[in-house]
């Protein structure tokens, strides 16, 4: 895991961090003269020498963070050693000998969550931030990490609490002479809520693409040069190409960044009727990939004379297809298709790339009516569930159902989104009522 680099940073977290460091950090490289770690203030960086017993290991810089003002909320030390796997192993062995142990994947963030440094959604964002490969993905993870996403969820929860208060007002305070809310108003408000929830839920379509990449599938009949296009974009001979139709038996998938957007480029097996059992399975798998694709690149061969009439994606009206004609190097000037390229010579491939990027950008902005974008499937599921309950609530209102039933649905919606950041108590609803309405005989 550790390659060669200028430096390596090793992070220690936990209550014994400082005493552990003081057992190996020395002020001198000649002999072990323990550094005065106990007197270091938080958020300061110190130069020193690591010793294993009497052996000098490396010259290091250590940054100290005192609980609770650290990433994990515990005492933290970050040791910058020289790079390279040998030094890393030496230092890591030393720290283990002194009582440290390896962090589980995500353990620092888990501790930060458990110590109340961040909520669940923020902790989830850390993983996304680390994995982000493009500028957009990075921005989305940051949006979630800084609490903008949690803020949005809290806002929705407030909306639900307010709504619930209107319902409870009529249930618990019907004798108070307060003007109760008309059915029309309830209906209008619930519709607004549903719209809000839906637009946030839909933003997942964008969020998913930004975070996980656009699924771009190259499809077409055998031997039209799909794999050549695939290799061209990857800038390597990843897929085997030959003149023999059916060379690609199984699909291939590789990540790729174009125009600042992450793609998952999929090369599929050419689709045709075949008796070959292996190729048959390949065709089936290709079809699944086409289903899953956000953008389909449908390739044909310039040597095929009836391009205009024949098409593979028979019933595609989702607008996710880009049609391209390949191999113009074989018959220069022959094609009058809108997009004709040669993967072999590279001619017009830049045009194709621009076309793909434009389409991807359209996709991302299409489902993005919301100021906050969700990227996490768990969040999407919670919101979807909430939405379902809100729709139930609307049905209840329409059929003249009692407030106690409408409230049941709203509370269920509240519980669902609360799973994203934390829970709501009955007290919140009552407090809201007392602040807003004149209650009491």
């Amino acid at each position: 895991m550790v390659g060669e680099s200028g430096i390596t940073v090793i992070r220690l977290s936990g209550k014994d961090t400082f005493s552990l460091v003081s057992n190996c950090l020395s002020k001198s490289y000649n002999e072990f003269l323990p550094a005065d770690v106990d007197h270091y203030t938080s958020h300061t960086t110190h130069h020193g020498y690591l010793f294993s017993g009497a052996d000098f290991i490396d010259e290091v810089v250590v940054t100290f963070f005192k609980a609770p003002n650290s990433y994990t909320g515990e005492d933290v030390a970050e040791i910058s050693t020289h790079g390279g796997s040998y030094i890393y192993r030496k230092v890591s062995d030393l720290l283990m000998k002194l009582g440290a142990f390896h962090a589980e994947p995500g353990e620092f963030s888990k501790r930060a969550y458990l110590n109340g440094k961040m909520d669940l959604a923020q902790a989830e964002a850390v993983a996304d931030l680390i994995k982000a490969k493009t500028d957009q993905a990075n921005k989305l993870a940051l949006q979630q990490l800084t609490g903008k996403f949690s803020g949005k969820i809290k806002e929705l929860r407030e909306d639900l609490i307010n709504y619930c208060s209107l319902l409870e007002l009529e249930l618990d305070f019907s004798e108070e002479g307060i003007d109760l809310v008309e059915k029309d108003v309830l209906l209008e408000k619930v519709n607004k809520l549903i719209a809000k929830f839906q637009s946030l839920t839909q933003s997942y379509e964008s969020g998913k693409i930004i975070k996980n990449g656009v699924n771009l599938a190259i499809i077409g009949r055998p031997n039209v040069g799909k794999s050549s296009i695939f290799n061209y974009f990857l800038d390597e001979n990843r897929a085997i190409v030959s003149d023999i139709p059916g060379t690609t038996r199984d699909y291939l998938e590789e990540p790729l960044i174009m125009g600042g957007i992450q793609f998952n480029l999929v090369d599929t097996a050419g689709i045709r009727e075949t008796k070959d059992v292996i190729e048959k399975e390949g065709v089936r798998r290709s079809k699944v990939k086409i289903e899953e694709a956000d953008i389909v690149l449908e390739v044909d061969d310039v040597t095929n004379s009836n391009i205009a009439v024949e098409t593979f994606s028979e019933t595609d009206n989702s607008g996710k297809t880009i049609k391209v004609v390949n191999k113009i190097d074989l018959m220069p000037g022959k094609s009058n298709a809108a997009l004709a390229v040669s993967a072999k010579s590279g001619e017009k491939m830049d045009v194709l790339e621009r076309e793909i990027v434009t389409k991807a950008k359209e996709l991302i902005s299409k489902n993005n009516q919301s100021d906050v974008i969700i990227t996490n499937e768990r969040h999407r599921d919670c919101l979807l569930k909430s939405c379902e309950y809100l729709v139930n609530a609307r049905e209840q209102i329409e059929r003249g159902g009692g407030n106690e039933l409408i409230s049941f649905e709203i509370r269920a919606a509240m519980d669902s989104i609360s799973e994203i950041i934390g829970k709501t108590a009955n007290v919140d609803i009552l407090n809201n009522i007392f602040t807003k309405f004149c209650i009491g005989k």
Partner: protein
Amino acid sequence: MKQNTKHFDIIVVGAGHAGIEAAWTSSRMGCTVGMVTMDLDAIGRMSCNPAIGGTAKGHLVKEIDALGGVMGRIADDSEIQFRLLNKSKGPAIWSPRCQSDRDLYSKVAKEYILSCPNITLIQDTVDELVRDSKGNISGIKTSLGYKISCKAVIITSGTFLNAIMHMGHQQNEGGRFGEQSAKGLSNYLLNQGFKTARLKTGTPPRLQLDTIDFSVTSEQPGDDNPTPFSVFTNGNFPALPQISCYLTYTNEDTHNILRTGFDDSPMFTGRITGAGPRYCPSIEDKIFRFADKLRHQIFLEPEGINSNVVYMNGFSSSLPEDIQYSALKTIPGLEKVKMMRAGYAVEYDFLPTYQTNLTLETKLIPGLYVAGQINGTSGYEEAAAQGLIAGINAALKIKGEEPFILKRSEAYIGVLIDDLINKIPEEPYRIFTSCAEYRLILRQDNADRRLMKYGHKYGLIPDDIYSNTLAKEDLIKEGINYFKSNFAGPKDMNEYLESVNASPLKQSDQLAQIVKRNEVKLSDFLAIPYFDENALIQKIRQSEIIMDQIEIEMRYEGYIVRQAEQVEAFNKMESVEIPEKFDFNKIKSLSTEGREKLNKVRPRSIGQASRIAGVSPSDASILSIYIKG
């Protein structure tokens, strides 16, 4: 006094609504009870409004009744007006409420107490508790100098601990008009290490009935068919003639006069430090906080059949007497009214409930139970519910049996006590239906079906009444089962369906589907000739109550199923136990506030821990990770 036994199993301190239930239940469970009150004539006194029940409170009364308590019976015997509130809404929130004859209520309450051979009434004031070498309760000392030994004490002292009454600049010691405060016990508890805090409550003026011009107010009659709270009440109900209440409103003149008193208000000037109930604010508070509201409703509630006193519901105040009087005379109907007593506020000590277990036994002194306003609640019904739970648990402890704790998913009483212990009230606590997350199944109409098994188990419900409930339960189940498993066609059904403007059947349909329709009223439906030969339906048809239950269960069915799933999830969390001696300090990652609250309340399950105010969701998840390992 000398002739009194010097030993009782249980001493109940106070004879209000909590004390009555505590003494009643524990004595019925075989304990000898000494009931100590400062005033033998104040047993079951209604210190505030002359009414029992209301939203969610009516549920409590029904539950108390199902468990064998007496509040419902006393209310039925003294009832002078009945209303089922929220009747236009869903059955889960129908709430029975009655006006009571104040004097009769108190008289009947005393009769119930005197009818228990195990209860001895003692007029005195408890100053101190006596504890044995292990710290357990062993007796009490009174103001008159008596020592009485006992195994448990239940304090139901209401607002009498360190009570101060406020009216304008006037301050008097005392928990109720014309009655003293109990200082000794308050000081004793403080010395034992209990923490106390202040709360405030208020009461409105009382008016002279024959000086009110009711012709300019609007009459609020009761329901045509009053129904009793209690399963014990039958035959002669209602026993008394029924009265009306009257509705009138304040106006700008009223508000302007009240405003002139703001400078003298003990609330606004800070002389009252205790927090008052937000759901029952004083009239001055309403005007101050909701300045744009031009009028507030006032209910004029006669205090009895032969009483000349009217309770002025909605006009609670602690402003100076003269200002109250001039202000209320601007209200239509009250122009020439005589005010018999001004409104006032009471400030009193309560024991913040982190010091108490779900059984209502204090953590500090084993054998000491607390119930009612001393726990920070308001309301007769809330007090009675706690009295009942404290009484049952004190008796169970003396008998060496398992404690009795109702879950939030079982009863409003469970919600009430769970909220008290975990939320730690900062204002007097009142129950609402919105406090009950499982309210679709915790209905007032099925309190007996939910809870009578416990009342029977503890000997508080006689066999005959319990077997009636069991038979009823069977019939309800049989009925529902019948409607679900039988079908009927257009020929038999359409005449009826058309008569109620419901769309006719095109083909045969499940009877349950017909019963669930909004237009269908079960009692009418079951009267059609189609059912004439059906023995089961004949049986069901005889009972309005059973038809109601079937109708409610079937209409709510989908929701009842979903609610039951929620209850299951809830019970799962409740069943993850936290060991009794668990050391919360050893979990370093808990938030400071979370750890402090966990140490204070010492929850017994993860579910309970997650409901404690101040314990954040992340604290709860840390705890759960820690406990589950």
